């Protein structure tokens, strides 16, 4: 069933890093953003008022992490639509490779890059974020990968819907970034208008933010079991949906 998965994943990783903006766009940019933000805000960590400190110490790292996840998803949507438009998906499918293998290889590449970006960001941020050094990094990485996987599943639904590769990036961005606004990262979900509250409850970003903030601040996995279940359900639902509507050509 999974014959060729490792080889294809490795190959796709290499191919992605050969893109002129491949490594720079996904790995370097988030790290640079993090350093710049850290420079601007890092010195205020201890001195500033409580609210500001909390934003810088918790929301900001979570925001950067979620942005890493979103950029991975946008990249996935783009690659899938470019591969479809160029007949690459069709060509790969006309081999003994099973269809899920072809797509899972892309997911694994994105998860690997997400983990690598996070690791680099943390290393870069140590100087400005003494707080960051004490967070359960391994746990946070796992939480980010779970979140990314769930948002990636939405990426497959988007990739099924976008008509051409040209629209992949903008359509993905328009759908994904607003999810952040109601995710609870900037305001608690509880104070949102009811309609937005319901929408927030359906979006993976909301649970991802809750999970990431919780793990970052040292809360237990058990207290976030609900978030993980929700992310899992959304992931399964999106995979099932895109399995029905996904177009190979």
């Amino acid at each position, binding site marked *: 069933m999974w*014959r060729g998965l490792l*080889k*294809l994943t490795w190959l*796709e990783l290499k191919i992605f890093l050969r893109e002129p903006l491949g490594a720079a766009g996904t790995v370097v940019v988030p790290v640079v953003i993090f350093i710049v933000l850290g420079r601007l805000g890092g010195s205020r960590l201890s001195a500033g008022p409580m609210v500001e400190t909390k934003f810088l110490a918790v929301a900001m790292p979570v925001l950067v992490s979620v942005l890493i996840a979103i950029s991975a998803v946008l990249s996935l949507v783009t690659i899938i639509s470019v591969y479809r438009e160029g007949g*690459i998906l*069709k060509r790969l499918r*006309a*081999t003994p490779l099973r269809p899920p293998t072809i797509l899972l290889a892309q997911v694994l590449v994105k998860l690997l890059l997400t983990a690598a970006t996070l690791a680099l960001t943390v290393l870069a941020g140590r100087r400005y974020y003494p707080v960051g050094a004490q967070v359960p990094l391994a746990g946070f990485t796992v939480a980010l990968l779970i979140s990314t996987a769930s948002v990636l599943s939405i990426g497959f639904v988007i990739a099924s819907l976008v008509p051409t590769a040209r629209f992949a990036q903008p359509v993905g961005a328009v759908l994904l970034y607003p999810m952040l606004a109601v995710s609870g990262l900037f305001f608690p979900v509880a104070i949102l208008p009811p309609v937005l509250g319901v929408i927030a409850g359906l979006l993976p970003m909301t649970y991802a933010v809750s999970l990431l903030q919780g793990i970052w601040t040292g809360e237990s996995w058990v207290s976030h079991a609900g978030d993980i279940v929700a992310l899992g359900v959304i992931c399964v639902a999106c995979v099932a949906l895109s399995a029905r509507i996904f177009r190979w050509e």
Partner: protein
Amino acid sequence: MTPPVIQIAGFRKTYGSTVAVHDVSFEVNDGEIFGLIGPNGAGKTTTMECIEGLRAPDRGTISVLGLNPVRDVYKLQERIGVQLQEAQLQKRIKVWEAVDLWASLYRRKTIDGDRLLDQLGLGDKRNAWFMTLSGGQKQRLFIALALINDPDLVFLDELTTGLDPQSRRTIWELVRGIRDRGKTVFLTTHLMEEAERLCDRVAIIDHGRIVDIGTPARLVARHCPVRTIELASADEAAADRFRAIAGVEAVTRQGTRFTIRGCGDDLVSDVIQCLSEHHIRVTDFRTVIPTLEDVFLTVTGHSIRD
């Protein structure tokens, strides 16, 4: 005699309300180059992709190497090699990486990738990115990928479309080489010259229906039996002599140029014999034999380029 490699009967395929293929039946024999020829949109690719198991037919039965392409698609893929129309690979995949990936996908023993690339003239392109290859090199790479699992049956869809005449000839040689190694080749083309030079047998498809099947020579004999001989001679009495030859249907004369039309395999030799018997001096002589292009025009009522 070995059973047919491909058997397809009563095959029909629709996309929404468009009928791509109405009713197609034919057989492909072991070890031949079989061509499905027709204009763009005639149903060639649809038919080929259903035989490959990439699409499911709406009606009819298809058997390939004794397998059902829909039900046994993974078993079938082990034993066939496929080149798709207008396919691409990842822009920045290297030639050797593609061959290496493909080779790792098959359970059966694959052939040596490096030697294959050398045979196809891609040896010095092993480390080149796919996007840097020329059209002909890309097609040769796709041939390599189609051959890597040493398949019994090879599918080539519009293999030489968009290539220059030089690359086209190189690729024809390669395809003949595939057959000479005992494999069966099923190809589609809208180039009648390609079909005529390459195919042992062809099926003409138009608007989703098979119009006729046979060797190129037999199709020409069946549908365009009229041969034309053009010659130049100052002998004014020649026209009557030509008209007396059996099988000659019409003789026209414009100045010193004669055009003789007629049927029958002996027509050319009969005309030559007539020339020598009557000591008719000829300064120019050529025969115009109809081609598959003419056959296509005759059987479908329109040119293949329309």
